[in-house]
């Protein structure tokens, strides 16, 4: 149920769409074989709708984009990293309820 608000990040577009982005960007590191990632997906979709225009929200498949996952030392997924001005300002690894994630994001918008 990915909405149009959810972007797809890759090793090749990461610099342009995340690191150099004008507004905060939430990146969901995930993989096809990760059950909890699939369970978090609807929450990420909902956040993308709630924060449309304020925070860019998208997903990065760690299987297809190992370089970015390696660069940010991802050791567990699902992992949500919030980028602001090219810096990681928040990271949440594992499942978390939507209201908790909103509190984390709201600190930066």
């Amino acid at each position, binding site marked *: 149920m990915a909405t149009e608000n959810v972007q797809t990040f890759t090793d090749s577009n990461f610099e342009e769409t995340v690191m150099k982005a004008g507004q905060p960007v939430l990146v969901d590191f995930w993989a096809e074989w990760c059950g909890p990632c*699939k369970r978090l997906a609807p929450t990420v979709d909902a956040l993308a709708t709630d924060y449309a225009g304020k925070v860019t929200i998208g997903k990065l498949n760690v299987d297809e984009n190992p370089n970015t996952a390696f660069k940010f*030392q991802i050791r567990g997924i699902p992992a949500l990293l919030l980028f602001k001005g090219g810096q990681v300002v928040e990271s949440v690894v594992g499942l978390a*309820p939507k*209201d908790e994630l909103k509190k984390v994001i709201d600190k930066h918008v």
Partner: protein
Amino acid sequence: MLRDVIIIGSGPAGLTAALYTARANLRPLVIEGIEAGGQLMLTTLVENFPGHRDGIMGPDLMTEMRAQAEKFGADIVQGNVTSVDVCSQPFTVTTADVTYQTKTLIIATGASARLLGLASERTLMGHGVSTCATCDGYFFRGHEIAVVGGGDSAMEEAVFLTKFANKVTIVHRREALRASKIMQDKARANSKIAWRLNTEIDEIRDTGKNEVSSIVLRDVATGVRDEIPVTGVFVAIGHTPNTALFRGQLEMDANGYLVTHDGSKTSVPGVFASGDVQDHIYRQAITAAGSGCMAAIDAEHYLEGVPEHLQTTVAADAKR
């Protein structure tokens, strides 16, 4: 709206209870919880669920159960229950966004991975410390890692992790393993697995760098400490029931499991429990599903048995 049945939890117990109560036209509401789908979401191939002779992937099995419950009219909502009141009828169930009222409650909140309880473990969770080998093993390709525990799940995780890691050290605080013989044999036959029995973990380093660099081990018999380099620590020391919501309201045993009697009945009439939240013995997908079915039938009988005048009072109260 006053519900007939609310089910908390969406593992095999919760979804089977949903299937049965949906088919009984009770229009159950299932509140998924954070760990939606339950422990099977963290597994790979499940080979002991009857009806799947070639096995089925745990997450696929849960997707099927969910779809089957929905097909018969179960309402499944995302959300995490923050409080429950079963001291007065109707029962109240509260999530971050909504407060629900229900005549019966089926608790299927399951059990979550138990942790060692070290401060360093908490800090490094998700940064090298994990409770989910199938989720996180991928990130340790070519690394040396540790698995903590001596049960079946520790053996299974260790063997699984050798697909990625160069070396997996199993750390267990006793000499004897709790794991079944077949799982022990599998682990012992694997040349990538090393053993540190009679050993506990004192500390996971390096919290300063926010990554795992080593573990400090202590020999239980001699007290001698040593440090071995690892980049990952997988904790598989069992589970603890998710019953914090019900403390002081429902009878529990010394380990926090809900106590059931006469099937799935808890200490409060109208509240039923199924699955791992009330089972520390069998803890299988199939037994959880079976007990979910029992809870559904018990809830149905309870609703049929509630005297007509009481039902009216309950409904009127809810509208006020």
